[in-house]
């Protein structure tokens, strides 16, 4: 527990880290400004032993107008996961690439480009389609993309689907006693 807090104070001298969340002895999250992120990742990879890129993903925070990128790194010596988070603007989203640090970083970036529309200039094959094929609508993982609306307009819904209010329906039909307690 203390080791990671010590490390955090060391990192704070070199980077302007804006937040730190120590979840447990195995997991911590740290907030880094976007322009220092790749430098920070390189530092923790090369100097602190966070050698394993577990995953790299984004969360669309539509209300704040930002994408929150999360790089999850793992240190096999201390058996600790470190989530490095950075916020980038939602419009014309662009970020530095990490494909030179890990080859599979390029795959994650290809996916993010397709699913969120975040650009990573210089990343190999970032503009190729990864999962979707012939997709012309907005990137589907963006928060303002409505999958139900799209599905109803594009595919042919079989008529006859009914939607019930779950609690009311449980009371009426199935488990009158369970609906009270659950």
């Amino acid at each position, binding site marked *: 527990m203390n080791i990671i807090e010590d490390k955090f104070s060391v990192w704070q001298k070199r980077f302007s880290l804006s937040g730190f969340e120590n979840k447990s002895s195995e997991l911590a999250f740290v907030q880094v400004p976007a322009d220092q992120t790749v430098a920070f990742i390189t530092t923790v990879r090369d100097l602190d032993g966070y050698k394993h890129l577990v995953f790299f993903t984004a969360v669309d925070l539509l209300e704040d107008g930002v994408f929150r990128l999360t790089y999850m790194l793992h240190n096999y010596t201390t058996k600790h996961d470190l989530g490095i988070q950075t916020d980038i603007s939602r419009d014309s989203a662009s970020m530095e690439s990490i494909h030179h640090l890990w080859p599979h970083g390029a795959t994650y970036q290809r996916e993010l480009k397709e699913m969120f529309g975040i650009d990573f200039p210089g990343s190999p094959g970032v503009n190729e389609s990864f*999962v*979707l*094929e*012939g*997709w*012309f*609508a907005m990137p*589907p993982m963006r928060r303002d*993309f409505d*999958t*139900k609306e*799209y*599905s*109803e*307009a*594009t*595919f*042919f*819904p*079989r008529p006859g*689907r009914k939607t019930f209010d779950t609690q009311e329906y449980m009371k009426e039909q199935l488990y009158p006693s369970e609906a009270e307690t659950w």
Partner: protein
Amino acid sequence: MSDSNKQIDEIASQMKMANDGLSEQDKAYFCDTRPHAVEPYKGILEKFANWARSQSLWILGFGTGCGAIELRPLMTSRYDMYRYGIQPRPTPRQACVFVIGGYASVKTAKRIVRSYEQMQGPKFVLGLGSCTVNGGMYWDSYNTINRLDHYIPVDVYITGCMPRPEALLAGFNTLKGMIREGKAEGMNKYIENFDWYKANQKKIIKDWNMPDYNW
């Protein structure tokens, strides 16, 4: 719904038979005639042919979705579909039954259409799982089709998520009965309503870069 119908009509009106969407170089490789319906034989000959067809169903070894996992127990010793004359084949040219293993994403749907058209007639389609009927779990997903029968003709649906191997065997037996009675006419249905099927397919497959009929 009316909007979507209009869209389909629009695509259908623009559609030219021939190898639309292919480059000039590639066009030479593909036949561009329309498929034509197959007339049944006369009388007892057709009955005999149907009996023979129903006794050897060769399925295409294309695991299109998670339903493919139940094909493994089915083709190994416990459920052993070989005793019903059913066996998997690696290529569409040798197969006559296409088992759609559940949900089909748009990318797979394109391959399903291609593989289905490459299969030799008479050919039959088995829709496996609830997701082929109405989308099932993924009814609101942006990437999976909801109704398989809008894209290729389906002879038998097997519902469930996932259907048990016994359900699959029952489905195969239903299909056999249909073939013997001469009711499994999916291929002719596809050819008769060719324009409708093509328009539906083109509505979801936005980058159509293959021949219209993939013979």
